[in-house]
């Protein structure tokens, strides 16, 4: 047993660390995703792609990916989180890319993969529907084959950053007679097709992060079907498996705690730094221990994966604990800033004005609100518990 990285991995870490330090544009550090322009959001990916061919950590080398090992991917994520870089575009790189690599036909690979790498295409995900939250297989969007096209009608929701998207990968029902999880297909839809309408959903933190997408008689060429008709559920499950890896967010939480400590050093309670008050320091210690435990659990999963045992349903633990920690950090930050936790900074011009209180208080309340989503999305934490109950405990 050994929890240290190999020398080769340590050398790789140093390389990554140096690359980030030399190349990540400092003005983009720790920017909120939904106050950034599309180009801002893609800048880091483009730099990685152009300078190193490092845009797609989880693609095979033959398609322009890095071909990294599980440990290397882990190190890449850690170092990026530590440095506060712009997160990898999840939908194109992390989700669709691997699906196309595994199940796309040659034309699809040739056309789409390079455009994902360069950021020419921005992708969004058309999974959720108003009637089907965690019950994904209950989706109702219909695609009817007419000659060379599918005619798609339906209503997608919670579509993250669809306002930037050129394309959407989408689950549609192609066989309404089939049992729930059969009869679903995986379609690629050009967002400029007539009949596609994007409606913003403003969340309680004031952000425009998610959308509804209405599909009304949208004509989708049959060559945009991925894999086999009615087999979409297979690809969707494959994709969800990818989505879950990295969800623990250990390095990002570690970084958030570091900032929280800086805040709590500056805030004072009757002259004593908040950080040193027994109440706060106790809560902080409990949180850090929770994070230590999660980190070790993730390393254990990673080590198992490196030895060829894939991340099983145990990875639901990473989702549950990871999101609870992310939420808790923002909650303690809100506690730390005292009265200034009441300040609401709506997106837009006001967000650029000087902070109402000390600089570190900016956006703290919004982050607390925003993080509530994490225990809901990506399969709610209740669903994750159901998965563990069934798949791990066999109940």
């Amino acid at each position: 047993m050994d929890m240290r990285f190999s020398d080769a991995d340590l050398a790789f870490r140093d390389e990554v660390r140096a690359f980030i330090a030399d190349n990540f544009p400092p003005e983009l550090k720790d920017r909120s995703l939904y106050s950034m322009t599309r180009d801002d959001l893609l800048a880091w990916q483009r730099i990685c792609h152009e300078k190193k061919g490092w845009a797609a950590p989880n693609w095979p080398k033959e398609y322009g990916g890095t071909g990294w090992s599980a440990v290397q991917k882990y190190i890449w994520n850690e170092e990026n989180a530590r440095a506060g870089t712009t997160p990898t575009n999840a939908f194109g790189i992390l989700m669709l890319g691997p699906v196309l690599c595994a199940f796309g036909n040659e034309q699809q690979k040739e056309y789409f993969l390079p455009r994902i790498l360069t950021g020419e295409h921005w992708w969004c995900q058309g999974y959720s529907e108003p009637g089907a939250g965690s019950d994904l297989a209950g989706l109702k969007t219909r695609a009817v084959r007419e000659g060379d096209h599918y005619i798609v009608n339906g209503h997608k929701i919670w579509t993250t950053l669809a306002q930037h998207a050129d394309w959407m990968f989408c689950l549609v029902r192609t066989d309404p007679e089939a049992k729930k999880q059969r009869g679903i297909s995986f379609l690629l839809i050009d967002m400029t097709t007539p009949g596609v309408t994007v409606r913003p959903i403003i969340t309680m933190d004031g952000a425009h992060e998610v959308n509804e997408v209405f599909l009304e008689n949208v004509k989708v060429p049959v060559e945009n079907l991925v894999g086999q008709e009615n087999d979409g559920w297979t690809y969707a499950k494959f994709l969800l498996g990818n989505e879950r890896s990295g969800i623990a967010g250990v390095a990002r939480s570690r970084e958030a705690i570091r900032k929280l400590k800086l805040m709590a050093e500056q805030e004072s309670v009757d002259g004593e730094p908040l950080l040193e008050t027994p109440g706060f320091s106790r809560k902080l210690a409990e949180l850090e221990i929770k994070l230590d435990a999660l980190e070790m659990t993730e390393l254990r999963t990673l080590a198992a994966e490196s030895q060829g045992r894939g991340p099983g349903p145990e990875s639901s633990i990473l989702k549950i604990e990871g999101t609870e920690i992310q939420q808790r950090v923002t909650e303690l930050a809100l506690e730390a800033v005292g009265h200034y936790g009441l300040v609401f900074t709506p997106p837009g011009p006001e967000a650029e004005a000087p902070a109402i209180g000390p600089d570190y208080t900016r956006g703290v309340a919004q982050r607390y609100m925003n993080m509530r989503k994490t225990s809901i999305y990506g399969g709610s934490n209740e669903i994750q518990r159901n998965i563990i109950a069934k798949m791990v405990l066999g109940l």
Partner: protein
Amino acid sequence: MDFSLSEEQTLLRNSVQSFLAGRYDFDTRYSTINSETGWRPELWREMAELGLLAAPFPEALGGIDGGPVETMLLMEEFGRYMVVEPYLETVVMAGGLLRDAGSEAQQEAHLPGIIGGDSVWAVAWAEPQGRYNPADIATTASASDGGYVLGGKKAVVEAAPWADKLIVSARSDGRRRESKGVSLFIVDKAAEGVNCRDFRTIDGRRASEITLKDVQVGPEALIGELNAGLPLLQRMLDEATAAICADAVGCMKALNEATKEYTTTRKQFGVPIASFQVLQHRMVDMFIATEQATSMAIKAALKLDAEDAERERAIAGAKVQIGQSARYVSQEAVQLHGGVGVTDELNVGHYFKRLTAIARRFGDEDYHLRRYARTG
């Protein structure tokens, strides 16, 4: 021992309920909080006409002789509808200080304006460095020209953007955090040297950071005795704390109803999600948390007139309980609503934000836990 309402109290509650039911639906509130001004002065005037702004004042001063229970009833309903208008700041806080400690002349000069809905007040007690300790005051008041000159910075003064009058706490003597030496002054918001930076609060209200630079006030601006303002301030803050505890109870009850409504309607896997035992038990825990909060809010109201230590302990205990219950109920309500729970388009997110705000007004859990332990 009797926790039922008197006939007058029942009438009061009914009247505010029907008043709000007709005027405070979600959409109306939504457009109000997103408007330029952020509140409805015309509604405020209607509240005055209905006599609501007169509730906690003695008849002799033009009031209707209500006490903490009446305030509790009103605040619970205001909580239920997430009323943004500055009842707490103007009537409970500023009005309460004037009622309890104002001179006859001050009462005559100012209470009619409050009761009549003509004047809006805000209380500037907190400071950037002071967190929740009302004695941690760096703002100074020095004698000058027979009156006083004030200078300093006041943090997150709620309702100040709507106010024409402020009550400002300042140190006229003593060291930072010392009990003695705090004084309270009435300050015209339009006075020279008063500078407000206005902003929105997370619960859809408005507040200001206020800078005071050589603000001259007359001798009539002083409330109570010089240097003896802290006990008045503390007593008032306790009353305000009891009031927002009731506000929180209103929010929680509404959230529980919304959650029940949603979970019994919303179907997944072919059945209403309320049929899942896990969600049932969590709704039970939300219910229990709300009942315990209700109990403590009642206790807070009924102990406001007890002697200092007993009052402080009841208030501190109530604020801790409300903070814990509010946190649990608001987070669970959002979670059980799933995606729609985090949108700005549903009342759930707004209650979440309101409860989040209440949990830290007048001191958070840690502050009041320490206060509670001190009085034990």
